[in-house]
């Protein structure tokens, strides 16, 4: 419908509310009689609890309860959700430890919850936690994934040999070995993908409320998948899902991190049951570094085999992936579910990947924007650049030779991806032109005169989005003909409300002002999985489309009945019949549908529709990034000068929001490459990056204006022809910036720069090169 149609740069419907301070994040909620909880956390990475005395804390002012591991064990609740399904190398099941909300005997990372203090005010709870006496017998710990799986490493779980959680193999080993045997050139490199954290601006939080009279639980929390969350949490609580309501308000960013059922969710519910009051827990920022699940953290040993013409023959990758100390459903998926990105946009016929997932004395892990995609993209796109360098071929030219041409689509890569469509060479050419690739050497020479080392870097990445799964949507008309659209997906800032209202408005001809959007409340939303893996536009968008399609089908029958004709046409919200000059609007029909006299005999009242859309095929967003940056020779400071992207995320539902997703993703990729890193002291296992003072976040100042063009190649794998857009920017940015840094320093003999490329690290590299 006109300005709100699918494809228009519609400004967001959620914005006025959020811009006026009307957001409703979990910390904004308050209930009568609400108490506040504070978690006492382990100060040690690995230790036995030898004594725990809570008597003084219990007697402190305002304290209503102090929960410890024993209370959780006696509560009747089970483990928090646990990962399952993978296997070890010998075929035995993966190691899946028990996962209580409070540690009882042993703590396994700095931040592991030991006690939960509940009081009338948060200050009282915090003060009382100081009075808890805990004696620890400190044990040796291991935080590094590379060291964790080595023989003799401290064991995170006594009965988990070599800390190995599971092993995952993918691709064709025999064919890959054969490809390497006939290769003219082999490039080898160990890539270390640093550990980072989502650092959502809103920290995690939960309010638990057990209604004793109704024997029913409600949890208000930060999440991504309300219905999946309810299923998993109900299992932990040992109750039917019908006795649990999960409510998400506005979510202040998640990027994968908030997708789990964290310890504190269980704690506020148990505390509410014990005290008879609603109990709130909201993480402080410092606490979030110790208590949130982290992302990435793996080591990739990669080898690329090429023939003498620079054609890729084979790729072999061994990954060690950090699992942290506990695993949940989804926490392990970054290790295996997105390895397909390693195959890239290339014809490489033979690929084999061998992944070992390793427990360490660190926070549990979770997907973080890309969940294995940026890691894989970094490996393939860095090693392609290294090959280009070693063979003396321009990196763009080497990529061009190996790109999958459109006429070979659908193309089964050497890994899991079966790419249905894409115009890779066209996108490469568009990006090179946008970046003025040819003019780069002149810009490099000019920068040199200013004491700046200028580099250019590109990446051409592809990932899977909207993995096979389902999503639900519902369209409800009220008696006046206005609409509520309910979605199974949950926005954390992506703008679902806007996209879904565009679809409803466009397909039903209802003005967006008359559409209400509702999400994240399991008592309201009937069906769905939720948000993650760049799935909502594809699956949620298709579900809304199916629901509105059902509405139109029924409304046409009602309109025909009302006009006394056999058939009506419907366009722009208006029903017309060729035989008459009468018209009816969608609202007219919706209102009429509430009265039996207007309906064909036997038709059910009302104009509501639900849809459960499912797909068996994922889609493959892809794009080319080119970045130009300068390194200050004296300080190692990096300044990005230009950044261009041409993406293919299929049909564009809203270019304004798409740009936001791509740029936002880029900023997180740039952050990881240049500054962010969770660091642990290797001896004590202490997290050394426990605040925004220590964990560097990207600020406005570090970014240039980012130019984005779209080259949509619609996919047939969903109803809207869209491909996922949420993770693409992050996937492309990590290798593009990494390649640009190396290019800037290559004249010094530098072939790789580890992340994060802080000024200190770059200065040391330049200093070392000068001394050599």
């Amino acid at each position, binding site marked *: 419908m006109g300005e709100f149609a699918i494809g228009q740069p519609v400004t967001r419907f959620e914005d006025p509310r959020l811009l006026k301070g009307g957001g409703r*994040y979990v910390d904004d909620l308050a209930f009568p009689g609400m108490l506040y909880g504070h978690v006492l956390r382990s100060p040690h990475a690995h230790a036995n609890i030898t004594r725990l005395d809570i008597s003084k804390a219990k007697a402190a002012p305002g304290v209503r309860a102090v929960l410890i591991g024993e209370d959780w064990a006696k509560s009747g609740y089970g483990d928090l959700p646990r990962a399952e399904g993978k296997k070890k190398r010998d075929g035995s099941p993966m190691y899946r430890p028990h996962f209580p909300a409070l540690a009882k005997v042993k703590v396994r990372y700095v931040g592991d919850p030991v006690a939960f203090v509940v009081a009338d005010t948060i200050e009282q709870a915090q003060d009382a936690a100081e009075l808890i006496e805990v004696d620890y017998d400190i044990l040796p710990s291991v935080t590094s994934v590379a060291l964790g799986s080595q023989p003799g490493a401290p064991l995170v779980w006594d009965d988990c040999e070599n800390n190995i959680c599971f092993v995952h193999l993918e691709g064709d080993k025999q064919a890959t070995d054969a490809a390497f045997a006939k290769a003219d050139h082999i490039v080898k490199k160990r890539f270390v993908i640093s550990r980072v954290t989502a650092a959502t601006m809103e920290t995690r939080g939960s309010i638990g409320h057990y209604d004793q009279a109704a024997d029913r639980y409600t949890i208000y929390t930060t999440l991504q998948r309300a219905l999946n969350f309810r299923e998993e949490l109900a299992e932990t609580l040992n109750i039917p899902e019908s006795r649990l309501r999960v409510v998400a308000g506005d979510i*202040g960013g998640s990027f994968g991190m908030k997708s789990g059922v964290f310890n504190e969710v269980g704690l506020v519910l148990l505390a509410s049951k014990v005290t008879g009051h609603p109990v709130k827990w909201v993480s402080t*920022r410092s606490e979030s570094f110790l208590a949130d699940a982290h992302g990435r953290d793996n080591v990739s040993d990669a080898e690329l085999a090429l023939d003498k013409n620079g054609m890729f023959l084979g790729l072999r990758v061994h990954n060690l992936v950090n699992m942290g100390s506990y695993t949940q459903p989804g926490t392990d998926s970054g290790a295996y579910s997105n390895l397909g990105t390693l195959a890239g946009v290339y014809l490489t016929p033979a690929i084999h990947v061998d992944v070992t997932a390793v427990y360490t004395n660190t926070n549990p892990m979770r997907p973080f924007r890309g969940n294995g995609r940026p890691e894989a993209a970094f490996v393939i796109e860095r090693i392609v650049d290294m090959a280009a360098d070693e063979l003396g071929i321009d990196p763009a030219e080497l990529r061009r030779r190996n790109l999958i041409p459109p006429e070979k689509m659908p193309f089964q890569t050497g890994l899991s991806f079966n790419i249905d469509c894409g115009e890779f060479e066209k996108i490469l050419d568009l990006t090179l032109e946008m970046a003025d690739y040819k003019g780069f050497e002149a810009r490099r020479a000019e920068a040199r005169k200013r004491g700046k080392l200028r580099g250019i870097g590109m990446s051409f990445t592809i990932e899977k989005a909207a993995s096979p799964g389902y999503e639900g949507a519902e369209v409800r008309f009220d008696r006046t003909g206005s609409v509520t659209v309910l979605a199974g997906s949950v926005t954390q800032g992506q703008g679902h409300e806007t996209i879904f209202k565009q679809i409803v408005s466009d397909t039903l001809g209802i003005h967006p002002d008359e559409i209400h959007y509702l999400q994240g409340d399991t008592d309201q939303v009937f069906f769905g999985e939720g948000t993650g893996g760049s799935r909502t536009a594809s699956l949620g968008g298709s579900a809304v489309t199916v629901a509105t399609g059902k509405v139109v089908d029924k409304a046409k029958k009602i309109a025909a009945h009302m006009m006394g004709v056999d058939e009506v046409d419907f366009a722009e919200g208006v029903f017309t019949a060729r035989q008459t000059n009468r018209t009816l609007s969608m609202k007219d029909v919706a209102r009429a549908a509430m009265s039996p006299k207007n309906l064909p005999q036997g038709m059910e009242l009302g104009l509501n529709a639900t849809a459960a859309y499912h797909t068996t095929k994922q889609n493959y967003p892809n794009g080319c990034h080119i970045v130009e940056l300068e390194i200050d020779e004296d300080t190692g400071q990096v300044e990005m000068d230009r950044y261009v992207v041409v993406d293919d995320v299929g049909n564009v539902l809203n270019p304004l929001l798409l740009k936001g997703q791509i740029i936002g993703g880029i900023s997180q990729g740039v952050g990881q490459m240049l500054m962010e890193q969770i660091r642990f002291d290797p001896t004590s296992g202490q997290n050394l990056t426990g605040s925004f003072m220590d964990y560097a976040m*990207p600020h406005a100042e570090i970014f240039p204006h980012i130019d984005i063009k779209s080259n949509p190649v619609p996919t047939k794998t969903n109803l809207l022809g869209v491909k996922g857009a949420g993770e693409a920017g992050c996937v492309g940015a990590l290798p593009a910036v990494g390649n640009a840094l190396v290019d800037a320093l290559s004249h010094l003999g530098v072939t790789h720069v580890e992340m994060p490329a802080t000024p200190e690290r770059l200065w040391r590299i330049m200093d070392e090169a000068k001394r050599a």
Partner: protein
Amino acid sequence: MDIDVKMTVNGKAVSGKVEARTLLVQFIREHLRLTGTHVGCDTTQCGCCVVHVDGVAMKSCTMLAVQADGKAITTIEGLAAADGTLHPMQQAFRDHHGLQCGFCTPGMVMMGVDIANRLPGADEKTVRHQLEGNICRCTGYQGIVEAIMDASAVMNAARS
């Protein structure tokens, strides 16, 4: 021991009893229940809590409520016109997609107004530098910077 504080918040006289350690942001959020001002960190880095104190941008997490006694405070709830019309800075944030999750947004908008007031016509580089006390995790800042520059021009034109 409770201490009496009085101040003007969004044009209204308010008063309350606070502890000496109560932060201005706690007073605003918990006593006045104006929850648009957010807390995103505990080390004065993120800027989610920026409000105006006597017309100047301040991080309300780094100021005690008692320090604001007698001052005039404007929070994000006090920025739009009485009839609900968005302030030019709020409108520009919407027009330029300068927000996603919305959590850093109140602080960003209040900071944006402060930048526009202090440095009318500031160029992109200056605006980016001026935002060094505000962190956004979603947008990559581009929409925010464009919004501040755009609103700054609108506010400038309205002044002249």
